[in-house]
């Protein structure tokens, strides 16, 4: 069996607010040619102005792919005629892309390998063409929708390091997880937000390029077909032709397109309407600091909490689910809540409740069974439902405490997923809580000191937690020293003030104090 050498060229649509060179909104599904202006229609005299948000999204991805960012790079014009390219050239990057030399760790069942990234560059998307009878009465008519014209694109070129169809698929899955975690693209292949061309050769021989692949499954199928086709040719002693081939979704085969001999000459030259792209080290640093936990790291963390690799991957690779999961953990870690009465949130009722006890594994089990099934079936993300982390954790607790049955709990969760307000338990904590996390967060922020601790704990997500007891004790002592009256009141029996001290100390720590430790130390210090 000959060994395949595969390289992927991936185009990613960035979900910036506006297009790459004009202020038209990036919006899909709008009426044809309704998101256009002189610039993206290439009217005579219009000039491009580079969108800084697109640049930042672009190099955020490059950083996540461990690429070197060039402080100066250049845009070039890539010249060719086609109705979907209004200027007659595409503004792209050529010999000076903004980043090079990165890699992506790609895990399959057999291996965990480092796949090189040769370059990541920026360019603008073309308009969308609709051909033939499907849209007009004339088979020879084509229509052009310029809403997509000028949407920022990222081109990510891998090294020819990929050795199987499975690995190519894993590369794309990992790349998509990164894009989604960074929140810069839906990464949805069916919608064209992510597009993939593959280059493949056997035993480092002549390569063929396959285009027109529209799903993850098709990438795999196209590669499997090409491996088979090229093997068959070589077995018969026939050469593989260097050419562009097109994947046929319906039949699962590739067919010959134009050969490289008649390849177009794009006559690249530097875009004189734009100044060189400058990405300062300060800018890079600032973005680097803000990089979220990436899927690989997140999977490792979840694994360490006892989740199986498949569970960790499912949660970690879907950023909304991962955020939800982390918020659940935070809810568990937080001791201080408010009693919510039937008339709504009552700030005066703030009390400290006994801690929730659900662990990571339990939360994951709940998320990955009925909830995930519902989300997949309804094509929703968890953010789009009424289920909140606090609601789920409370439910798990009610069930654990034996107040409601598992069946009842599942019913309530389903009701929340379907958008109904949730009745959590008959008595005790969180009765009739509106289950609107945003409102709850807002309430926490403004209403009572008790709740400051909760906010601070939520705010500390992703920050390094401070667990040094002496540092924390320092903050607690400062708070106590500054609030003698409250101390006296507490000692005279006003228990609710406990939360106030915790909150003040948490504030002092910038939200970074380990909440369990902080609670313990406040108790210790007040007990003195």
């Amino acid at each position: 069996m000959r060994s395949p050498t595969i390289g992927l060229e991936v185009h990613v649509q960035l979900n910036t607010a506006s297009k790459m060179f004009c202020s038209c909104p990036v919006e899909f599904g709008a009426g044809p040619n309704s998101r256009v202006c002189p610039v993206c229609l290439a009217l005579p005299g219009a000039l491009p102005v580079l969108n800084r948000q697109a640049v930042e999204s672009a190099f955020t991805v490059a950083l996540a792919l461990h690429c070197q960012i060039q402080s100066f790079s250049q845009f070039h014009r890539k010249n060719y005629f086609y109705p979907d390219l209004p200027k007659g050239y595409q503004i792209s990057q050529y010999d000076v892309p903004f980043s090079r030399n990165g890699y992506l760790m790609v895990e399959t069942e057999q291996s965990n390998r480092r796949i090189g990234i040769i370059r990541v560059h920026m360019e603008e998307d073309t308009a969308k063409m609709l051909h033939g009878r499907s849209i007009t009465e004339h088979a020879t008519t084509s229509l052009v929708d310029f809403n997509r014209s000028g949407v920022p694109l990222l081109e990510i070129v891998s090294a020819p390091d990929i050795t199987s169809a499975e690995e190519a698929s894993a590369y794309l899955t990992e790349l998509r997880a990164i894009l989604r975690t960074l929140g810069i693209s839906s990464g949805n292949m069916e919608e064209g937000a992510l597009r993939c061309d593959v280059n493949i050769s056997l035993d480092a021989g002549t390569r063929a390029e396959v285009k027109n692949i529209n799903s993850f499954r098709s990438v795999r199928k196209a590669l499997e077909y090409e491996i088979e086709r090229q093997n068959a040719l070589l077995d018969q002693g026939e050469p593989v032709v260097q050419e562009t081939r097109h994947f046929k979704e319906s039949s699962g085969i590739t067919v010959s397109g134009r050969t490289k001999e008649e390849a177009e000459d794009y006559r690249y030259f530097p875009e004189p309407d734009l100044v060189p792209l400058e990405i300062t080290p300060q800018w890079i640093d600032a973005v680097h600091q803000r990089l979220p936990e990436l899927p690989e790291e997140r999977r490792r963390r979840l694994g360490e909490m006892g989740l199986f690799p498949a569970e960790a991957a499912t949660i970690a690779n879907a950023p909304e689910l991962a955020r939800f999961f982390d918020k659940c953990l935070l809810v568990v870690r937080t001791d201080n809540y408010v009693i919510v009465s039937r008339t709504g949130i009552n700030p005066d009722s703030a009390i400290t409740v006994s801690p929730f006890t659900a662990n990571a594994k339990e939360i994951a089990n709940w998320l990955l069974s009925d909830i995930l099934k519902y989300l997949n079936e309804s094509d929703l993300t968890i953010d789009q439902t009424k289920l909140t982390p606090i609601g789920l954790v409370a439910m798990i607790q009610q069930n654990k405490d034996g107040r409601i049955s598992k069946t009842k709990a599942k019913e309530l969760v389903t009701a929340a997923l379907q958008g109904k307000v949730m009745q959590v338990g008959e008595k005790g904590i969180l009765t009739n809580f509106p289950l609107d996390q945003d409102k709850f967060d807002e309430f926490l922020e403004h209403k009572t000191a008790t709740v400051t601790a909760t906010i601070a704990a939520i705010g500390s997500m992703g920050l390094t937690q401070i667990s040094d007891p002496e540092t924390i004790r320092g903050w607690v002592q400062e708070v106590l020293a500054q609030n003698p009256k409250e101390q006296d009141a507490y000692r005279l029996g006003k228990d609710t003030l406990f939360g106030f001290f915790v909150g003040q100390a948490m504030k002092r720590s910038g939200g970074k104090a380990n909440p369990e430790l902080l609670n313990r130390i406040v108790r210790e210090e007040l007990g003195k």
Partner: protein
Amino acid sequence: MNPLLRRPAHEILPMLSRGELSCRELMEISLDWVSQTEGRIHSFLTQDGERALAKASALDQRRAKGEMPGPLFGLPVAVKDNLATKGLRTTCGSRILEDFVPPYSATVIERLEQGGAVLLGKTNCDEFAMGSSTENSAFFPTRNPWDLERVPGGSSGGSAAAVASGQAFLSLGTDTGGSVRQPASFCGLCGFKPTYGRVSRYGLIAFASSLDQVGAFARNVRDCALLLETIAGHDPLDSTSLNEPVPPYLRELENNPGSLRIGFASDWLAMGLAPEVERTFHRALDTLRGLGFAIESISLPHSHYALPTYYLIAPAEASANLARFDGIRYGLRVPGENLKDLYQATRGQGFGAEVKRRIMLGTYALSAGYRDAFYLKAQQVRTLIRRDFEQAFGAVDLIAVPTAPSTAFRLGEKVDDPLAMYMADLFTIPISLAGLPSLSLPMGVEGGLPVGLQLVGPALAESHILQAAWRFEQATGLHDLVPPLAEVPRA
């Protein structure tokens, strides 16, 4: 002609602002003169008389209500037809845009209108600003008001002829390799090509993006300063526009520029100069000396390569800039059997010979296998030319050089000889390649034809150039020149 039309803009403007002369009245006088002369001169591709009258009346009403008049309040002006004007046909002198009406206005047009200027219409030019005589207009040639058998220069010939003949007080042109300065020279005007990036290019229909710059025509230096001040300044819609404050050119005009050192490149004079131009130039140097400027010889050794360098870079950029005229979204569309036919028929019929020649030159210069030898080499030479100027400006403050090697030539004289036509821009092109500001102003009238002098400065030295030019103009009296066609009959 009404003598009001020969008055400098800076004398007419206070009359308009104070209401001593209504905008409407002046506009009627201007339009009347346009209709009397246009049949001989052909400055305009599109006239907008009715709207101009309406706008003039509207301005009068606003003044009556006590609104503060802008710096160009009520002044009839003309603009070159490669500047986009919202709702007003913009053809670039080309069949391919014969019926094109832009939905937006160029930044310079907006600045003019905010300043209170009223557009008389769009002026004729060489197709896509490619030419030096305005004979490459797809519609008709424009005549030089000094001699109707001669060209007004180009490519902004219509804008120059309109101001020289008194049809408009001021006008805008565009200058890629000399297209404002050379017509200014041929028509006895001031023509200013500012520093690259000083004036927004947004809405200027591109010929060669790294060279194109909007320029100002006026009959005297003060009017020129006024127009430049109105249009200059940073524009967020043009990434190459400079984010530098615009000095008050007008207020600084009479400032003493100090004992400026003015350089002249003796090697340029050897490049082929008509004897009357050379004579006039030496006289001009004497005048400058008399004004207290030190005249020093400088060397710009790479200028010899400027013409070939320009004719690689400009067409290369043009070949891409003109690709958008494909018959798909706007402009001419000639149907074809298939997409390729449609492209070929549209562009084949829509573009004139000179435009096609340059598209082919540029496409060739960028093609695989030739790019290094042509386009990239030209970029390297451009850097050397730019360095020549940088070095020269270490030793002198301004450079003086004739604007064109000859006075206005006859219609048809060079039309069949592209190389001879290209030579008309010999002295303007090196300055364009270096992106420097340059003002052409009259330095004499020889055999009934004006001769222009260029004053060139380092980047953003517009104010210095204007100050020196104003002193020169005061010394020679060569301002507000009147071609025979526009002589006011003696009462």
